[in-house]
């Protein structure tokens, strides 16, 4: 495993780029980063001055500090310290289809997060509309159930919110509020069967150890329909990429809901409650609602739209080794590459365009680790004329959903999956 905290990585066309496109060098990025005083950070004067490494995301007020002061985490883009919101710098996705645990993005809602977890006393409680409530130790889970493993992308509902136009309030993420891991644990179905789901069960609700600072702040809980919860893929993970979960990613247990947005992947999972009526808690009934339209897309200001809880992910694809402003040589072949995923269905196809979408060519896809994970893609490209070129990539999935060519909009800033493009120059 290369040391992701090594030197800078530079994308194709950047003056610092060394090595072939496939093996870009062992160095690593701080694209657009420099070591400067914090006086510019947050658009603010020097009332909080200290040295910092800064990264400019590609939207207004997009300056972020690259921080290394979070436990079990390498260099991350800071969006909020408490409760932590940490974005994965995008160059990490060029290194591997599995996102290293120490670079995996972090998103918490409530600030009272346990810092000490004693595995000897920790219990996972299964209760509610069941024949017999069950309380399981971590060893019970590891030894008492058939292990289950799946590769799956965990993506924040609001990943890429910073690119919404018009902008919306919320976590101003670039594209790094996502990650792909190999999750190991137990099927939720098997755990529910240990307690015995009673007839009339409607939903299964998940709660973690985190709570709000104020007693009146709604506890963060999410629910799935009972049939979904019992589908044999929804699972409780006790390992991530073959290691224990970092605390900030949910140690010791988190929900894994393959193909669905990360809001359902409850961290520090402590309680699973079977409900015989719909969950009306704040986080299901009021938060994380999307317009019930294709791609959750409405016009800004549009009223009277029916909303539903956010659910299945849609396909996305990204460039990982080339950025806006790259300069390439005419007549010289470059390998452009990136990552893609299908959302709640496998990738069907990834297409590359070097002429702003007028024509498309299939790409070569890397190893398939399962339908819910990232796959790498690559395409050779030889600029035939000098001047600007617009490169684009788009994915479709086996359910017949393709990335749209116009960006969606909704007031929550959810579910962005427009076709990605980069503008480059050939000389």
């Amino acid at each position, binding site marked *: 495993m290369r040391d992701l905290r090594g030197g800078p990585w530079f994308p194709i066309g950047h003056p610092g780029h060394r090595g072939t496109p*496939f093996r870009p060098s062992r160095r690593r990025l701080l694209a657009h980063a420099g070591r400067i005083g914090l006086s510019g950070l947050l658009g603010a004067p020097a009332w909080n001055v200290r040295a910092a490494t800064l990264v400019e995301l590609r939207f207004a007020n997009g300056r972020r500090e690259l921080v290394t002061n979070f436990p079990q985490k390498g260099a991350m883009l800071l969006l909020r310290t408490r409760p932590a919101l940490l974005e994965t710098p995008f160059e990490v996705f060029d290194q591997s289809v599995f996102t290293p645990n120490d670079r995996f993005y972090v998103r918490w809602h409530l600030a009272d997060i346990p810092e000490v977890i004693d595995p000897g006393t920790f219990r996972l409680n299964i209760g509610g509309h069941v024949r017999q409530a069950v309380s399981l130790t971590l060893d019970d889970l590891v030894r008492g159930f058939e292990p289950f493993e799946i590769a799956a992308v965990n993506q924040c509902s609001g990943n890429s919110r910073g690119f919404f136009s018009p902008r919306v309030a919320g976590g101003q993420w670039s594209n790094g509020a996502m990650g792909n891991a190999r999750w190991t644990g137990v099927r939720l179905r098997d755990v529910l069967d240990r307690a015995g789901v009673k007839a009339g069960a409607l939903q299964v609700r998940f709660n973690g150890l985190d709570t709000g600072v104020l007693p009146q702040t709604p506890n963060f809980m999410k629910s799935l329909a009972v049939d979904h919860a019992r589908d044999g893929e929804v699972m409780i993970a006790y*390992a991530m990429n*073959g290691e*224990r979960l970092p605390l900030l990613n949910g140690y010791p247990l988190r929900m894994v809901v393959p193909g669905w947005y990360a809001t359902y992947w409850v961290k520090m999972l402590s309680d699973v409650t079977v409900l015989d009526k719909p969950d009306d808690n704040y986080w299901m009934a009021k938060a994380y609602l999307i317009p019930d339209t294709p791609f959750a897309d409405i016009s800004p200001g549009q009223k009277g739209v029916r909303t539903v809880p956010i659910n299945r992910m849609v396909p996305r694809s990204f460039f990982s080794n080339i950025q806006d402003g790259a300069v390439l040589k005419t007549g010289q072949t470059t390998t452009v590459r990136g990552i893609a995923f299908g959302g709640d269905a496998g990738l069907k196809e990834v297409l590359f365009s070097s002429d702003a979408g007028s024509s498309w060519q299939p790409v070569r896809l890397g190893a398939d680790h399962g339908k819910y994970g990232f796959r790498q893609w690559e395409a050779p490209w030889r600029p035939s004329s000098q001047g600007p070129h617009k490169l684009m990539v788009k994915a479709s999935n086996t359910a017949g959903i393709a990335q749209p060519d116009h960006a969606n909009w909704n007031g929550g800033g959810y579910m962005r999956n427009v076709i990605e493009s980069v503008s480059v120059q050939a000389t």
Partner: protein
Amino acid sequence: MSGISADAMNTNARRIPSRTVPVALAIALATGPVWPQSDDSKASGAAPARSWVKMNVELPTGQVTFPPGNGAAIANAQCLICHSAEMVLLQPALTQDEWTAVINKMRSAFGALLPPDQVEPLAGYLHGINGR
């Protein structure tokens, strides 16, 4: 990284085959695409540990305060109860009405203690430092 460690790779929940590749196949593969690194060098290692270690970490709390101005005292006293300041300062420029809506959501949905008569001064302050 001190809170967790060493036992993380201890045997036995499930055996995953190692990635030993016969030489001839390795040569054949080498003629195909060469990804930046083996896709699964890390992820397919040993199965996770059966034993667990006590987790004990310290989470940073955030040092940033709100920039000086009329209303900064309200922001520092109220907003920082539940969250650090950065995310407020990293919002897009919002109208005063949009800032008011954000503050009212903090009060009605999350139970912020901000008294009603401080909503307008706080919205004015936030609009002043990051408004449109």
